[in-house]
């Protein structure tokens, strides 16, 4: 009975924690601009993250090695360093985006300019990270994130039965007034938002943090196979609400404030309160996760002790990296660079960098010296390999599309 409750809690935590600032921005912007024509990318991305997270969770549980341990062991120090620099930079952008996003949410509640909140929130995130126990932190914020389900309720009110939403999903390709290049560029952003690398760094390191063993693999699978797709449905709800309210009015989404309009329209202040609360919690969790990921990646590359499962003084360099990264991210946010713009760049670059970390994990998930008898099945390998190809295509296409569309303008 306790085990079932644990699994249930894990699923809800994964569900509530799935959506972060990247998903909010990507799904709202895409819904407003392309209706539901890119919904298939969200589905593609969710399947991708499920495969990726399950493999890295399994590897971490059975070998006690986090993602970057594996990256370095398989690719060697040089390639792993290139990998580290790229991953660290993108992760750094993501931290800035999440902290900026938090500040924007507080601005919506108080009316006071977001820049004033950035340093305070940076400190708040760090304090929670420093003091709160890992599993409590994850559950508290993950479950609170579930408040964003009001978006799904709002969509139901806007489009009862979801008839319009579903039929809109069947259209493929850009609308007549948009180009395939922009369509492709937004697709890459959506994919990057759904499959963000930091989620995997955090997930696999978390498996070691929580001392997972072979017995926990099924809990891992439940969280991932059920929790993440539910999170994906929430992403689609955000896209659908945006599509229903904004697309017909010619409104393009470029501010976080607009994301709350569909919920306000249908559910008034109560709905909006739930949404803002949920957004705050989920983005806060993401800020913690990306900050820790900065430490995980660097520490795992160099072989330093990492993790919140040891006292801070036992993992001094790890915590130093986390602090420095957060400080840098706060400074970046304080340059008044629009957090939404930072988010847009972080998700697109994240998509482009995915093969770097996905490939070693795919190889190691097949290595009996790491995972014993629990290597990938043939079916899983077939799908996982197909994804490797997809991710390589995405990686190659990203910079050209970024140039052609001038950053999705």
């Amino acid at each position, binding site marked *: 009975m306790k085990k079932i409750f644990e699994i249930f809690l894990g699923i809800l935590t994964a569900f509530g924690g799935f959506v972060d600032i990247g998903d909010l921005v990507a799904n709202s912007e895409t819904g407003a601009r392309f209706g539901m024509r890119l919904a298939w990318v969200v589905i593609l991305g969710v399947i991708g993250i499920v495969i990726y997270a399950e493999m890295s969770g399994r590897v971490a549980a059975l070998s006690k090695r986090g993602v970057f341990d594996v990256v370095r062991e398989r690719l060697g120090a040089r390639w792993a360093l290139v990998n580290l620099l790229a991953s660290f930079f993108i992760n750094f952008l993501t931290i800035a985006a999440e902290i900026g996003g938090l500040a924007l949410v507080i601005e919506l509640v108080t009316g006071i300019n977001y820049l004033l909140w950035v340093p305070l929130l940076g400190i708040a995130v760090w304090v929670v990270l420093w003091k709160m126990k890992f599993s409590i932190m994850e559950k508290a914020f993950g479950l609170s994130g579930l408040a964003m389900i009001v978006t799904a309720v709002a969509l139901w009110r806007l489009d009862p039965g979801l008839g319009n939403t579903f039929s809109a999903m069947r259209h493929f390709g850009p609308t007549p007034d948009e180009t395939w290049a922009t369509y492709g560029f937004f697709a890459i952003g959506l994919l990057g938002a759904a499959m963000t690398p930091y989620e995997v760094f955090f997930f696999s390191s978390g498996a070691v943090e929580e001392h997972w063993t072979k017995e926990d693999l099924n809990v891992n699978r439940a969280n991932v196979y059920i929790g993440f797709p539910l999170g994906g449905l929430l992403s689609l709800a955000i896209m659908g609400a945006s599509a229903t309210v904004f697309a017909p009015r010619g409104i393009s989404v470029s501010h976080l404030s607009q994301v709350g309009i569909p919920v306000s329209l249908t559910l008034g202040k109560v709905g909006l309160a739930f949404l803002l609360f949920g957004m705050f919690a989920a983005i806060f969790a993401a800020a913690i996760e990306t900050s820790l990921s900065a430490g995980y990646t660097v520490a795992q590359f160099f072989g330093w002790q990492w993790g919140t499962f040891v006292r801070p003084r036992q993992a001094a360099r790890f915590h130093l990296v986390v602090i420095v990264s957060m400080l840098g991210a706060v400074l970046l946010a304080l340059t008044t660079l629009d957090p939404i713009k930072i988010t847009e760049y972080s998700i697109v670059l994240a998509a482009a960098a995915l093969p770097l970390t996905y490939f070693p994990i795919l*190889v190691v998930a097949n290595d009996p010296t790491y995972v014993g008898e629990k290597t990938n099945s043939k079916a899983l390998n077939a799908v996982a390999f197909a994804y490797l190809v997809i991710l390589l295509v995405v990686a190659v296409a990203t910079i050209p599309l970024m140039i052609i569309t001038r950053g999705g303008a």
Partner: protein
Amino acid sequence: MRLTDLLEARLFDVEGVDLGTIRDVWLVQDGPPIGPFGAALRVERVVAGSTAIGSRLGYERASMTGPGPLAAFFHSRHAHGVSATWSEVSALEEGTLRLRLPAGELERPESIEEVQGHAAGLVISAGLDLLDRQLVDPEGLMAGNVDDLELELRDGGPPEVVAILAGPGALARRLGGRLGAWMAAAHDRLKDPDQEGPARISFGVVAGIGSQVDLTVGREELDTFEFERWVRDHVIAKSPGS
């Protein structure tokens, strides 16, 4: 001598034909005893050529069968690779390894399982099983990575692995180029003046190797701990609740 002197060296046969860059070095555990680890590891052969990347990824083993296309690709290419046992080596110079035989007389490359079949001890791939692995102390705390290996040539026999080299001093040489030089210079300036060269962990304190390398000494006693100690004392200890 370091392992990186062998890896990345170019392999030439007796006629001077370039056989490619050495990508991996296989070790056999058949040397003199060296502490809890048992017999020391000695160089058995080098694997060269572009196909040897598969060795680094682990596709040398028959047990690595997935994903299908990758495994098939690397397994098929292995037959076209070059591998030479240490007895076929005549000289090691700056960046090159010369063989005593022409390329045509080298034996067909075997898989690591085949080599294990007729070897006197455990056969491992230095690149895959030893290099870049996490070092863990008896308390389960992480103590760095295997950044390089120190090899010693003994009485005309194959080089023996005598120590693990860890930390920026060793990593600098692996990375090479300007970045490596910068890292080496920084390490020289910041390290303990008594310590010569990179942090060295004698193989005598290695308990075993698997998905990690287990040590018999606590990490605080290793040279690699210096930087961690400094950060701990000067930065982290100052923060409340550490």
